[in-house]
């Protein structure tokens, strides 16, 4: 059993250590020791983003998170073609939306604010919704400070769209306690979500 001792370490260090251990021991289970619920939650997100499962035991300040690789049937896989091995998502028309700023496009800020509000309103009226919408850098001002965008995001979230905001960015802009919709995420989860999606739309 591979064990990572991340007791006393602040996020994202436990996540980084866990990811390194998982990469160094592919196909093996890893136990990560952490001392707080935020780290536990982030490790569970890491596991999910890697297609692995996680089970936590204990409570603060002694929590053990067991991250287990998915069951695999190597014999079946060996008989498949490269095409068949592609994840189902790669052949679907799923897409994700990435916002690295709080307006659409370059140029006039007021116009850009109008455009971003109209974009999210339009999304609420479409049938083909993104699987996730991610916010980074100044983009995190949208799910926190823009009431119109927040209302649209709530509609989208109620229809199953994941709303992910970068925790470091919320921290930087001192907006962590003002997130009105969706969840606080991290670079690993956001990067993995983009990588796993066949299409990414950046505005």
């Amino acid at each position: 059993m591979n064990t990572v001792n991340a007791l006393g370490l602040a996020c994202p260090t436990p996540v980084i250590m866990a990811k390194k251990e998982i990469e160094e021991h592919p196909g093996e289970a890893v136990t990560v020791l952490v001392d707080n619920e935020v780290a536990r939650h982030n490790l569970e997100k890491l596991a999910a983003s890697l297609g692995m499962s996680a089970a936590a035991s204990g409570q603060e300040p002694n929590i053990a998170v067991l991250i287990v690789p998915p069951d695999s049937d190597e014999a079946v896989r060996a008989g498949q073609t490269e095409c068949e091995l592609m994840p189902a998502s790669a052949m679907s028309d799923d897409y994700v939306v990435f916002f690295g700023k709080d307006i659409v496009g370059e140029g006039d800020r007021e116009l850009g604010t109008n455009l971003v509000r109209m974009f999210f309103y339009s999304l609420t009226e479409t049938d083909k919704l993104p699987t996730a919408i991610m916010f980074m850098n100044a983009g995190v001002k949208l799910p926190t400070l823009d009431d119109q965008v927040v209302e649209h995001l709530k509609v989208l979230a109620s229809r199953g769209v994941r709303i992910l905001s970068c925790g470091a960015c919320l921290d930087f802009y001192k907006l962590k306690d003002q997130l009105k919709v969706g969840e606080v995420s991290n670079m690993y989860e956001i990067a993995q979500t983009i990588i796993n999606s066949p299409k990414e739309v950046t505005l």
Partner: protein
Amino acid sequence: MTPDCYLLSFRSAHDAMKAQTILDGKLAYLVVPTPRSLSGSCGISLKIAAQCEDALMKLLRSGTLDVCGPRCWTVEGSGPFAEYEEMKLDAD
């Protein structure tokens, strides 16, 4: 019959943004794309909830928004099947 909501459309994006400046703090609105079926307007419209009808009519009749030259539409339904009818307003 009360419509589902109201829509204000404008000649230009500048007029639409000027209207927002006037409405801020007076009337709640959503910035929405102008429906394709409404020709002769710019791409930015403002959606007003039906509950705000009295306040909207008061603002329109008082001429407060005249500087932006809005057209006011009643909206029945939503999404691509919504129906729009232009309102003709009598000044106070």
